[in-house]
Every structure is written in structure tokens, then in C-alpha cells.
């Protein structure tokens, strides 16, 4: 077994007396689709914030391949291939979709420091940005300001911006949050068609989608990992049933 692409060792995080992450150990091999599930407040988004550097763990280590990245800032992790999307749209409202993706490509290539060459001189950057938008069905609206895009299109743009950074590991925080179920198929088609070189960890509440997309599932409860396994193992696990069925009346 080769080194996992992303792994953590003994991550702890407390907000005062509230434990939001306790002894988190994960190891994601290359190309695997992981679902991260658990009831509200289980610490799923916190874990993504810890992995991406938006939060610092109190204890523990994070590795990208063989390199320890625990002390690196979020930008440095992105440049090493560890990239996230946001549960709540976190976009550039007044940039067009094309400008936004072009910006992400420029930052990846180190071109964003250049102030003496016009953007139109970067033909291959524009082509790359446009092809990412095309693959996510956003090409027809690429010259519209982001704020004018439909909500579902903005969710797709979240993924487009992440792809423009050429991720090795992609962390999707509820990619379809707020999208009506009958309109979310485009989103999940996009996630399904991601390159097999990319390792994906996604948070999702809809169990049908989780079982359709994920090759492995991590269940979190109260800041801890309860169990990790294949969809079949998770479906059969009595503890998971307890959390989901037993906890259902809490809402």
C-alpha cells in the first residue's frame, strides 16, 4: 500500500470546553471518493477547516503525501494541491464567471503578479478557464457577473474555481447545499466525472447520493470518527443506525 494522499494523526480541536474534533485519524488513498457523514454539529465542516488550514488544530498532525502541512497557511496548502469548496457560496460577486476562473488559473501559474501585460495576452490561460467552465456547463453564462448567475450555477462555479487550482485532494463541503433535489443532478454528474487522479472527500446529507457516489464512508459523531468503511459496511453497522435512527427525533 502506497502512502495515502491525505492523512491526519490525532487531531484535536476544542472551542473552550466544546470538543469539536477529538483524535481524528484519516488516511485517504489516491483517487478514492470519500463521503463524510454525520448528524448536524458532528464536526464535519470543522474537520474540513482543520485540514485546509482555516483552523489550527490544538494537537495533531496533517500530511499531504509525505509532507507535513500542519503549520502551513491555507494558501500554501492550496498551492500544494489541497483544495476545498464552501457550503455557503464564497465567490466573487462582481467578477464574471470567466474572470473568476481565469484568476484562479493565473494564481496557480504564478501569473497573477504580472501587472505590465494585459490579460488578453494570456490566450492559453483563457482557453483553460473556458474549458473548465464548458465542462461544468457554464460556458453560455461565462461573461455574466457571478451575482447574476442562478444559484445552482453558482454552486457549479464553486467547483470550477477549485478545479482551476488543479487539486490533488478536493474537499467538497455540501456541494449541493440549497439546490433542489431535481436540479442537483448536474452537480453530481460533475463530481462523478472528476478525474480519477483526484481524491475527493465530500460532506453530504442525502444518503441516496452518498451511497451512489462514495466508495468509502466516514461517519462522525460529536467531533469523533465513529466508524469508517465501505457503503455496505456502513449500511449494516448498528452504531450508525443508532446515530441516524436514534437521533432522528432530535431533528
Amino acid at each position, binding site marked *: 500500500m502506497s502512502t495515502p494522499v491525505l492523512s491526519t494523526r490525532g487531531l484535536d480541536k476544542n472551542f473552550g470546553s466544546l470538543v469539536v474534533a477529538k483524535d481524528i485519524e484519516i488516511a485517504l488513498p489516491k483517487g478514492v471518493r470519500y463521503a463524510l457523514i454525520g448528524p448536524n454539529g458532528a464536526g464535519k465542516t470543522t474537520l474540513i477547516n482543520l485540514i485546509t488550514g482555516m483552523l489550527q488544530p490544538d494537537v495533531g498532525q496533517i500530511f499531504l503525501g509525505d509532507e507535513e502541512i500542519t503549520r502551513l497557511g491555507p494558501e500554501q496548502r492550496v498551492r500544494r494541491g489541497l483544495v476545498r469548496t464552501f457550503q455557503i457560496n464564497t465567490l466573487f460577486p462582481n467578477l464574471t464567471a470567466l*474572470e473568476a476562473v481565469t484568476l484562479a488559473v493565473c494564481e496557480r501559474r504564478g501569473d497573477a503578479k504580472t501587472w505590465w501585460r494585459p490579460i488578453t495576452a494570456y490566450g492559453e490561460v483563457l482557453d483553460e478557464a473556458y474549458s473548465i467552465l464548458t465542462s461544468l456547463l457554464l460556458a*453560455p453564462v461565462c461573461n455574466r457577473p457571478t451575482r447574476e448567475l442562478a444559484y445552482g450555477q453558482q454552486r457549479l462555479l464553486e467547483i470550477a474555481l477549485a478545479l482551476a487550482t488543479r487539486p490533488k485532494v478536493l474537499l467538497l463541503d455540501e456541494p449541493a447545499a440549497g439546490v433542489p433535489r431535481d436540479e442537483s443532478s448536474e452537480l453530481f454528474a460533475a463530481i462523478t466525472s472528476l478525474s480519477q487522479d483526484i481524491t475527493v472527500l465530500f460532506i453530504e446529507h442525502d444518503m441516496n447520493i452518498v451511497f451512489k457516489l462514495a466508495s468509502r464512508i466516514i461517519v462522525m459523531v460529536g467531533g469523533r470518527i465513529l466508524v469508517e468503511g465501505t457503503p455496505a459496511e456502513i449500511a449494516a453497522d448498528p452504531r450508525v443506525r443508532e446515530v441516524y435512527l436514534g437521533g432522528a427525533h432530535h431533528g
Partner: protein
Amino acid sequence: MAVMSSAVTNPHQFLQAQNRWHWIEVAFWLATLLPFVLTPSYLSLASQIAITALFALSLDLILGYAGIVSLGHAAFFGFGAYTAGLISKWGWGEPLSGLLIAAFSAAVLGYLMSFIIARFRHLTLIMMTLGLGLLLFEVANKASWLTGGADGLQGVHMWPLLGMFRFDLYGYTAYTYALIVLFLLFLLSRRLTNSPFGLALRGIRENLTRMRAIGATSRSHIRTVYTISAAIAGVAGGLLTQTTETVSLGVVDFQRSADVLVILVLGGAGRLYGGLIGAIIFMVARDQFSGINPQYWYFPIGVLLIAVVMFLPNGILGGLARLVASWRSRSQ
């Protein structure tokens, strides 16, 4: 606009069309030559307007593009003004090299301050810029052995421009000089805002969290644009010194920082021409109203400012752009 732009799907064509010179821009720059013909007795005022416009342009780069609000931008204007004045006072009156030195010294100050600026946002940032501006004012006030303090810097004398054109009483040379410098630095700013770097600045203004999530080097971008902006503000200050051959404490006071912010907001931030239009309106209004009543001329400016921010949140230029857009979509 939205209707038109979405019809053009080729990304290259669309961006090229955005960056191309519009006929209105050409007309604007041709119109800047009109004072030579129409109002030759107002060329001194015209040169002051060009200098103020350049100062506003420098603020637009950080405020309009990168979203860095500054209440102390006069620090760089004043630093450039005093540098240009002192060089001349100490015996070197050559204007162009003096202006370069003023730009460079303001850039150094801007670069040093940018390390602080890049760390803060929102109210903290505004207070930080305000504090730095006040600090510099008091330094200039206290160091009267160097700056002349409240009496102003005496003994500034400029040599003829390029060894040929003396700074005349009518402001002919002054306006020509200020206008050419303004135009060149405008071209530079226009190039900058159309570059990948300019796009990154707009990204910083729009969403800093998202910039982190695409791996952007936002702090280094902020340091760069702040340094460039400080250099341009320093050039504006240097121009004022050279064309008036005096330096007063007013170049570095809070009023100047506040005025340039008002000018930019009036004209419309984030579109380069906003500061230029704002400077024309503000300076002409000040000239006219202070002729009527020298004490209360800020009253109409205040009314105008309130009206603009209430009804035209993107300034006068933003309002005009919206008008043109709605007129176009109706005529289609």
C-alpha cells in the same frame, strides 16, 4: 449590457472588447486640451485639477480595485511634495529627476507601510491609515527646521522643464507638464488594471476568503499595489511643489486625505476615470463657490456628496454607466 455580453460567448473577443479604447475615452483626453484654447487664464487651476486627478487615481488603485480604504493617503502626497521641495531647496532644481526622486521616496514609505496595511481589514485598516496620516502630519509640523513647519517650505526654485520651458506665471508650462504626467501614469494604471494582477486586486476586493481558497498570494498583491499607489501619490505631490514652488503643511493634512476620498466617491471608484471626473467637479466647484462665499464653500460639496451616495452608489460615472446600459437594452 448584460444582454449584449452574454450573446458574445468567445472569451477572447469579450475581454478584448473590454480592454479596447472607447471613443469616449479618446474624446475625454482630447477635451483635456481645451483649457489651452477656451480658458487660458485658468491654466493654473487646470494644472491643480490634473494634479488632484492624479492623486485620486492613485487612491483608486487601492480603494477602487483592491478595496483598501485609506483616510491617510495624503501621507504619500505630502512625502512626495516635501521631497521634491527639499531637493530643489538644496540646489537641484531639475524637475523630471526631482519628480522621479519624489516618486521613489514615496514608494519606499508606501512599501514600508504596506507590511502593516496588508495585515488589516475594515475599520482597523481605516484607523491605521488615519493614524499613519496624522503621524506624518505632526512629524512635518514638528520638524520645522527641515520643512518650515506651519510657515511652509521656502526657497523652492525650479529650473526650466527640459532646460527649455520656464514655469510661467500663467501656468502654461505647469498644465502641460501635469497633464502629460497624468496621462502617462493613467496609461500605466490602465495597463495594470487590465492585467492578471488587476484581476487579482478585484478578487481581493470581492472576497478575501475565496482568494485564500484559490491559493492566492493576496498579501504580496496588496503590498505591491500599495507601493505603486504611494509612488503615484508622491508624483502628484511632487508636481504640486514643482508647479507652485512652495510646500505648505496642507500637502500632508487630514483635509487632503478626506478631500481625495470625497473626490473618488463622487466620481465613482474602481473605474479609473472616476477620480478624474471627481477632481474636475470638486475643484471647479471649490473655485466657483469659494468665489461666492469663501467660508462656506463646503456646504454645496456636502449636499452633492450626500446626493451622490444616496442615489448613485457607484458615483457619477457608475450612474452614467447604468443610464447608458438601460438605454441600450431598451433600444435593442
